[in-house]
């Protein structure tokens, strides 16, 4: 730290006297003035003629960036990169993006913008000290004195500033030595910073090992451990040790339908589609198909799955000759009870919707292999309003 004169402090008893002194010294010293007070005094920045702080602009910019970033990223992920149907909602569901958009906006604006902006612009990191902090007056300024500081370069200037401050009514003045040029004062000390980093790493590792130990030596019982019946887990209550029960032979569960067929082939001969293939039914069928079937059988029903190649199952191509000739009841039975690795959807999709899906599958089959006659029929009719993916819900 150099020993040249840096600033002269004049200590005042209250904020009003400080403001009067600022007004008295402003014409002579102008931008060389700065005030140090025990608490913020609103409006004093105007008296001092300080330029407007940039923190507000930084916060607004970062807030808007956070908003754009979160909204853009979620839109891209959910509409382009990894489309997943959630409960039949459109891919671009802005309402579900809002909480994350809000959080990221606040995060960038407050933490990055306000806190880091303040640390760098106002507190002047990486400087962590300032000559005034080692002055005699500092304890008084943090308690009950209001200081007006005048920047000086030479001893003569310091004497003049001291006289001016006394004349403005300061009962007490102090000359502070030092400089605030970057690199001259102490910078952030390396050892404490390193020590903090090492402590953080150690604490993280310790927590990691502790939580691994926790499962083996539970100090308290947690709600995860209960003696109740949990699906798919062993349970000692029943003689066979299983928690999930089979229906009693010859009974039909409440709300369920009596199923007479035992195979898709049998269903094909026994059942026929009870719904008319009108636009409402087809829209319903399309929605249900896209919600439940599309991930495996593909947008066109051609068996080109959207799932990762790591899933090695081969979903059926619905356009193969065997399935084109199969009766409606066959499809209904496979949707209801499943086939090979495909699970049954009887519990998830109401019967009417399963029949609607069958109609929609027929539409896909005919559309992908349309004859000239079909195209003419389609061209001669107005396009039926089959529900689209988008729209509001």
């Amino acid at each position, binding site marked *: 730290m150099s020993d040249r004169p840096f600033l002269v402090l004049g200590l005042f008893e209250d904020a009003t006297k400080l403001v009067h002194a600022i007004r008295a010294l402003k014409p002579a010293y102008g931008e060389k003035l700065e005030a140090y007070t025990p608490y913020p*005094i*609103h*409006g004093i920045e105007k008296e001092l003629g300080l330029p407007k702080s940039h923190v507000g602009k930084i916060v607004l910019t970062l807030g808007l960036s956070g908003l754009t970033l979160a909204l853009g990223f979620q839109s891209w992920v959910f509409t382009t990169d990894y489309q997943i149907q959630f*409960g*039949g*909602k459109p891919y671009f569901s802005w*309402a*579900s993006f*809002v*909480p994350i958009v809000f959080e990221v906006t606040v995060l960038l604006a407050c933490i990055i913008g306000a806190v880091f902006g303040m640390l760098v612009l106002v507190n002047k990191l990486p400087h962590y000290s300032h000559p005034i902090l080692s002055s005699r007056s500092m304890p008084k300024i943090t308690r009950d004195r209001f200081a007006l500081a005048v920047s000086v370069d030479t001893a003569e200037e310091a004497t003049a500033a001291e006289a001016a401050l006394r004349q403005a009514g300061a009962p007490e003045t102090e000359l502070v030595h030092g400089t605030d040029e970057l690199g001259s004062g102490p910078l952030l000390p390396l050892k404490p910073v390193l020590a903090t980093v090492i402590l953080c790493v150690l604490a993280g590792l310790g927590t990691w090992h502790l939580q691994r130990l926790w499962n083996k030596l539970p100090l308290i019982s947690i709600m995860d451990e209960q003696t109740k019946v949990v699906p798919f887990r062993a349970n000692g209550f029943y003689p066979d040790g299983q928690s999930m029960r089979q229906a009693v032979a010859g009974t039909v569960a409440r709300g369920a339908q009596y199923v007479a067929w035992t195979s898709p082939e049998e269903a094909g001969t026994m059942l026929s589609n009870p719904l008319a293939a009108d636009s409402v039914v087809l829209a319903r069928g399309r929605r249900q198909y896209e919600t439940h079937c599309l991930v495996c059988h593909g947008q066109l029903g051609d068996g080109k799955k959207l799932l990762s190649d790591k899933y090695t199952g081969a979903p059926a191509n619905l356009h193969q000759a065997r399935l084109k000739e199969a009766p409606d009841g066959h499809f209904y039975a496979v949707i209801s009870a499943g086939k090979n690795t495909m699970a049954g959807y009887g519990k998830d999709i109401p019967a009417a919707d399963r029949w609607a899906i069958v109609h929609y599958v027929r539409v896909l089959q005919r559309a992908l292999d349309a004859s000239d006659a079909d195209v003419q029929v389609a061209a001669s009719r107005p396009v039926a309003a089959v529900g689209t993916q988008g729209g*509001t*819900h």
Partner: protein
Amino acid sequence: MGKSTLPKILMGLGALGMAGAWLAGDSVRFSANWFVWSLLLLAVVLGSLFIIALEHLTRAQWSIVLRRVPERLAGMLPVLALLFAVGAALGLSGAFGWATPAFREALATEPHLHGKAIWFSTPFFLGRLVFIFAVWLISWKLLAGGSMKQDESRDPRFSLFAKRFSAPFMWLFAISVSILAVDWLMGMSPRWFSTIFGVYIFAGVFLSGLAATVLGILHLKKQGRLKEVRPDHLYSLGGFLFAFTVFWAYIAFSQFMLIWYANLPEETFWFNTRLTGGWYPITFVLPILRFLIPFFALLSREVKMDAKRLSWVAALVLVGEVIDLYWLIVPELGQGVLLGWQELAFGLFFTGLGLTLAEARLNVGKDLPEGDPNLDASLHYHL
């Protein structure tokens, strides 16, 4: 023509139009308009009452200097009791969603509505109406009336009493505003339910009270009165307005998102009505008007410190409240977007009535609560 005659001309024109609307015979539309506008005035009054109680409860000093404005505005309450008596008569004759013959029949025949049948019985409704107005009238008498008396008596014991009274008042206020929200607004669509609805209405009520207070201050300042209210006080008031603008958006979106996400038919139909047809543009405009514009306007310190510019935002908040109430009530009539000369007539009449009442009230008593022992601290309040 003086400024004070304009509200009376509005009232006269509006009254003519309203008479026409009554003779036109669509009593449900007439009642719905009546609800929208009398609820706006009530929101101003209840918001004012809440500001007074909040100040006493927290022993806030900054707002003592402007407390006379909400205290006087709350004095519109007796007139509102009359308006709501008329409103109850209109509503019970079939304008309330829960008082329509169709819903009355459903209450008797659909077993899952039996619980609601108790709530929506006429005597119980009238009992609740009397109870909530009794709570508000008594609280107004005690808080505002007591404060006026303190001007003469200079008795500091009133301040202590007001603080103690404000604590149970908050509790009663929460219940009474929820009852108001359920009976008069949520009850327009009696099959629908949302547990956050009372909070949503409270957000609008508090915003309206704050906005009316700002406008009242500007009105007095224009006459050269209430010079004691400085930019420091306005800044704090503007801060409240800003905070509750965000609060309104937070509550409104919470309500929407949970219902949208769960996608249960017994909840979604309410929003579905408002997101289709002619209601969609209004639903779209509402968050812009009630959140985006006031939010960015109030970010600025200069706006919050300037009575004139703050009043523009306050006026916008009140416009937002009318549109909000209209958006809550009118879609339930099932007649589409109703915007015609009848709505204009109601707007003119009630704007005129509100301005006339507010102007008359703002001349009652002294401009400052001179008997408040902390008035001096408020006069010297600095940010």
